[in-house]
């Protein structure tokens, strides 16, 4: 009760006046809607300058990645030294793919590049909208436009993830007006951005979604992975409500965009197309 009072009385972000959100029947804030991040963290969680994307000789300015300031508290991700080297290798091979061997299927290439589900927290800051569907059942759905990825937040769920998954196993609870989501049980193959930032299967993410105005959620995520980082670290940025008339998620089913890239080399040459 005290924490609920504190959450209401103290604005999470200093620029917002104290806010009492509209509530669902159960008394919790109504987070329903279409939301989107405007930071460029999907290019790189840390400070990044504008740069050409892959194959600028073909893509020109279309492929360019714009500049952004770090969303990481303290600026830098606290990698163990060996892991920082691995990150650099990831980046160097981010647009290289080779699925000719099952054993090496995931060794190369940014999963986003291959249209694999982006995992958490990356799904939150991809340049695509997502929707939160919050009703009166013990589940909240997050539906992401990218790759039609979804994840189900199981409210007040106890226990470990029963199985590994790309989007992780999400356990939700309320702390005052903040939706706290504890996510673990990740497939290790997801990346955190296009810069090659990565994790292991021990990734553990705790997200906090706090309504600070009718049109903003403040998002924070604490990320820990003792195999990769020297300590837990935090990212934060606002999420903006998409308010266009009749706004809805559209489809970005990108599997067809990747099939030539992944599979055309195995085609019959000179066969009927």
């Amino acid at each position, binding site marked *: 009760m005290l924490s609920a009072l504190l959450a209401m009385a103290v604005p999470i972000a200093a620029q917002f006046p104290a806010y009492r959100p509209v509530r*669902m*029947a*159960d008394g919790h804030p109504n987070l*329903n809607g279409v939301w989107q991040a405007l930071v460029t963290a999907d290019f790189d969680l840390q400070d990044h300058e504008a740069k050409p994307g892959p194959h600028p000789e073909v893509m020109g300015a279309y492929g360019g990645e714009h500049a952004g300031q770090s969303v990481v508290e303290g600026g830098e991700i606290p990698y163990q030294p060996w892991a920082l080297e691995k990150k650099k290798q990831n980046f160097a091979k981010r647009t290289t793919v080779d*699925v*000719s061997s*099952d054993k090496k*299927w995931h060794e190369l290439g940014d*999963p986003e590049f291959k*249209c*694999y*589900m982006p995992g958490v927290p990356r799904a939150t800051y991809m340049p695509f909208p997502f*929707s939160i*569907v*919050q*009703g*009166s*059942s*013990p*589940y*909240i*759905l997050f*539906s992401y436009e990218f790759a*039609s*990825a*979804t*994840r*189900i937040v*199981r409210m007040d769920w106890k226990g470990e993830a*029963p*199985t590994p*998954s*790309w*989007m992780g196993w999400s356990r939700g609870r309320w702390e005052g007006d903040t939706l706290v989501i504890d996510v673990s049980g990740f*497939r290790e*193959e997801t990346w955190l951005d296009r810069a090659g930032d990565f994790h292991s299967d021990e990734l553990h993410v705790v997200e906090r979604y706090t309504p600070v105005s009718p049109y903003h959620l403040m998002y924070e995520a604490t990320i820990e992975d003792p195999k990769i980082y020297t300590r837990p670290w935090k990212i934060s940025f606002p999420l903006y409500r998409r308010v266009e008339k*009749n706004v*809805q*998620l*559209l*489809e970005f*089913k990108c*599997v*067809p965009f*990747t*099939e030539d890239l*992944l*599979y*055309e080399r*195995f*085609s*019959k040459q000179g*066969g*009927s*197309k």
Partner: protein
Amino acid sequence: MKGTLVAVLAMALWLPASAQGPGKAASQAPRKPAPPTKPAANKSSAPRTPWGDPDLQGVWNDATSTPLQRPTGVGAKDVLTDEEAADFQAQLANDLSRDRRDGGADADVNRAYNEHWMDARRLKITGDHRTSLIVDPQDGRIPPLVPLSPEREKARTARAGANARFNAGLPETYRDMSLPVQCIIRTDSPPYLPTIYNNDFQIFQSPGYVVIAPEMIHSARTIPLDRRPHLGRNLHQWLGDSRGHWEGDTLIVETTNFRTDDGVIFQNANPGTFKITERFTRVDATTLNYEFTVEDPQTWTKPWTAIIPWTKIDPKEQMYEYACHEDNYDIVHFLTGARKREASETSR
């Protein structure tokens, strides 16, 4: 003969939209099939969400062995007696069983991987003892086809050629593989039909929306209830664009703007003239009736309607992530395997 029969049946089993659906638990007494498409009475008996909509929330399973189309062997009967139903269910379960070992190697190879890898509910007929999921036309069968235009005939022939190459194990490119094999869509494109496993759908609701998340392939279908117009004509989606409204206890959903890359959609229909209406009605605490009507004057002589009961399975059972494209080794196995066999053929 029997071996071939079972082989053909087993092949048909792999067609998610076909008759040979998986089983459902018959947890209530048999009853007559619901009459098609009458709006529910105003007086509501369904539980409601706090904002007043009928409550469909939860995890639902639609597996059944009841075939989509009525078999002609049962004559004109649409509903069976208890004894006939028991026979019908036993016969279907026997024919669908993946644990059979008779029929020779050709049948056997298609029966992988044993029953326990399949949805156990797929061996049960619907609780109302119907002989088909189709309730209209009265004969329980898909209406006759109209002749195709030359363009669609060409597209169908091309698709048949691709299927033949694939079934022979010699696909030329990934394009010879179906959308499910490519992991683009599986059971998530409406209408929803039972298949051999992962027959699960989770329904979410919020004020002004119903959202349905099928297990395969991890997508969510948002159905706004505010009577907004459909997307513009030039926006096409694999799962179409849905709009819904309530009539009494029944959610009515109309879906348009279907996308196709090879000219056809559901059951070889023409996307430009295809229409689908779905109706969701919660019948009791653990049952929801899912009804769909499809029509396309350029494909069938008349509309047809099917009703499939859904059973609530949560909280005891949950829906799990079904990633598909991420670990789809099959595509590479099929293609490299074909190249290997072609190479060994030509080197002879």
